């Protein structure tokens, strides 16, 4: 037990003091303030039957729980799921693997430190909400229990599952982080409805709130809006929520989640590879297919080398493309080739609705490394002691990202050129600028792959997949829709370069 406590304490200290984690906490605290808009604000986060509670501790605590149950599983997963991979990368894992620490001890420790870190996030949100209530709320009652108790009942069990899932994914060494991000995102999408509507889940809070509203206004129309609702609601009214009646609450929900977490941990303990060196083995048939595609890729690479190699700068871009693409596994290249071929024969609607978003989702795995390559590979010293200008290196890296994006939709570009849809081609070109700029900005600012991995998938789902016009960065062939994205791309790329320049000069 002593070993586990020490491991856990060290792990938490290392991760908690990371600047990116501290920065994330600040952003989360700031975002919490925006969860509680005024009645006349042009957005809302929680309304039930056309009402929201006045901002007392009871309402703020319960409303915060509803929102955290919905969103914290997403945020917490991406923020805490690096405990095992950190040990894997730093070499610390092999030291632990050769020590008497058992798999069970190690996995439980990682799960527990993930859980504690997630709880720090929740605690920051609760304290921010309490501060908001004391300053702007209708009461100055200092009742932290109204914030913490509902979190303990609903959020903690869910987070225990989320953290167990993070540990399970990390135990599977062959599962790439970028792929995990996508898989988890879909799990989260699939579970959100269940989390809200499950009669034993947080819907108990909604049921009690609704009952109180009906007591206050029997004629209130049945409605529910959780999450970001854009646009003001002139008829939104407020009522006084007296708080949760804990005697009515069934605890089966919490216990069920804890049982799921326990089951996931058992699977993780069995799957954990104990930092063994992985040897790539491919069966003969798969190997042959990969070889064939490898030959095609090699042939195209040789042509690309000739084309790019005309100028010295072109040659630099070509090698930056290699750095991005060579890091990806064979199956990634194989899937993208299939998508490119499919693009050649698909209708324009299918291209924009399915094939291009799919190709770019895959492409995002490679682009996530864009702003982080130098730090991850440790090439900073040799690059920065060379005579090449930083702008030249940076531009080549950015353009390499754009070319990789265009390469993965080359089938679509060919098809659109064939049907003469020049505007659609231009809109895709601008889209690729936007995505590459976002990738290099987030990579440069955070020095991690995760920031782009997470934000891109959220944007990808909210925009192109949900066909939300204001977030659809693919533009569906409409070039006018791309103006704001290209403006943003310019801002991103300038900011990223300035930060890169600042950081490089700071080093010296």
């Amino acid at each position, binding site marked *: 037990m002593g070993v586990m406590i020490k491991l856990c304490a060290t792990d938490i200290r290392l991760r908690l003091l990371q600047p990116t984690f501290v920065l994330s906490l600040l952003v989360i605290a700031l975002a919490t303030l925006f969860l509680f808009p005024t009645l006349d604000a042009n957005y809302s986060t929680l309304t039930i039957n056309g009402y929201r509670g006045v901002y007392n501790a009871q309402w703020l605590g319960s409303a915060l729980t509803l929102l955290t149950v919905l969103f914290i599983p997403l945020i917490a997963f991406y923020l805490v799921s690096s405990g095992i991979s950190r040990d894997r990368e730093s070499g610390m894992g092999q030291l632990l693997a050769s020590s008497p620490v058992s798999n069970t001890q190690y996995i439980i420790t990682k799960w527990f430190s993930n859980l504690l870190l997630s709880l720090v996030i929740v605690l920051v949100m609760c304290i921010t909400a309490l501060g908001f209530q004391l300053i702007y709320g209708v009461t100055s009652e200092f009742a932290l229990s109204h914030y913490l108790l509902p979190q303990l009942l609903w959020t903690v069990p869910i987070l225990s599952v989320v953290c167990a899932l993070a540990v399970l994914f990390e135990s599977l060494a062959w599962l790439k982080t970028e792929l995990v991000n996508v898989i988890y995102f879909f799990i989260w999408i699939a579970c959100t409805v269940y989390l809200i509507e499950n009669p034993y889940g947080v819907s108990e809070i909604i049921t009690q709130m609704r009952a109180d509203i009906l007591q206050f206004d029997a004629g209130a129309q049945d409605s529910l809006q959780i999450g970001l609702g854009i646009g003001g609601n002139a008829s939104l009214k407020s009522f006084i929520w007296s708080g949760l009646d804990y005697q009515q609450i069934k605890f089966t929900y919490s216990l069920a989640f804890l049982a799921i977490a326990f089951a996931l941990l058992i699977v993780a303990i069995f799957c954990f590879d104990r930092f063994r060196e992985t040897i790539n083995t491919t069966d003969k048939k798969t190997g042959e297919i990969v070889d064939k595609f490898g030959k095609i890729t090699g042939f195209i690479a040789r042509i690309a080398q000739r084309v790019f190699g005309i100028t*010295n700068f072109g040659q630099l871009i070509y*090698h930056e493309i290699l750095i991005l693409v060579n890091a990806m596994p064979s199956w990634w290249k194989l899937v993208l080739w299939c998508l490119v071929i499919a693009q050649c024969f698909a209708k324009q609607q299918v291209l924009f609705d399915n094939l291009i978003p799919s190709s770019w989702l895959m492409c995002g795995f490679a682009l996530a490394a864009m702003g982080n390559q130098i730090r991850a590979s440790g090439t900073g010293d*040799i690059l920065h002691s060379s005579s090449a200008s930083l702008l030249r290196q940076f531009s080549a890296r950015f353009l390499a990202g754009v070319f990789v994006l265009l390469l993965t939709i080359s089938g679509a570009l060919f098809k659109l050129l064939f049907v003469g849809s020049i505007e659609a081609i231009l809109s895709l070109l601008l889209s690729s600028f936007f995505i590459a700029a976002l990738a290099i900005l987030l990579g440069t600012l955070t020095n991690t792959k995760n920031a782009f991995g997470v934000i891109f998938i959220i944007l990808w789902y909210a925009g192109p997949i949900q066909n939300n016009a204001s977030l659809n960065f693919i533009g569906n062939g409409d070039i006018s829709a791309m103006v704001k994205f290209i403006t943003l791309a310019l801002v991103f790329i300038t900011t990223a370069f300035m930060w890169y320049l600042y950081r490089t000069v700071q080093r010296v």
Partner: protein
Amino acid sequence: MELSIKQVSLTYKNKKQALDNINLTLRPGVIGFLGPNGAGKSSLMKILATLARPTKGEVHWQGCDVLAKPKRLREKLGYLPQKFGAYDHLTPKQFLTYMATIKMVAKREIPARVAMLLTQLNLSPEVIERPIGQCSGGMRQRVGIAQALINMPQILILDEPSIGLDPNERTQFRRLLTEVEGERITLLSTHIVSDVESIADKIAIINKGKIVAFDSPQEILASLPPLVWQVEVSELELSTLQASYCIAHSERIVSGFRLRIISDRQPCASAVNVKPNLEEAYLAYTQDSVKFAANRYVTSWE
């Protein structure tokens, strides 16, 4: 061709002084920087590679102030850092081409230069098609040296280049350095005396951020006062001597041990004065227990 370091000092934010008033004038040849870990070798190498700025002092390359115009030096520089990082998914050939492009080598010269270095560094055809991540430590280090040489540098800085190399690879590496030497200033920092003993034209011994000796290996040995003593002792006497003196070498013999001791005074009556080797000279200059070393901080070396 001249690189001069004038009154260079470096103090870190935590007030630790890494370099203290370094004055050196460096001309073509191999210059070995010998010093214990933490002596300030890497800090000096970083300053010369334009990756760090001194808190005080100047560095001039061919009369041009490097701190004001680092590009002048970078154009002529090849650098292998202590921790050499490479893009593991590129092959050595791809990585060298990439580095040549970064270092603005003329496009038409790149293939020939890459091929020449791959041959010179014994990187076999099967190795050069394999990702760097799958290469052994020695192979990886050779790629590091190749990237440092790709632009035919006039200044070659190698910071602890033999770390991670086995004895065979170490010998090969020394041979390689003499082969590619040419008309350039090669700075080689290490704490292993044998790395520089046979190839360095000059050796700078650095201790606690100061240069304590700068001369040819022969001159360094010649200028050393009689500090090295040889004595044969029993096992009991060995532990007594170990507690009070710097033992440079001990060898088991039938009657006990034969020791080589570095000391300002005769350690025991039976000890006889012997000619030092470079390793012992290095210890004499860097060991706190030897009083001679403490008084050796000279301000300017040519």
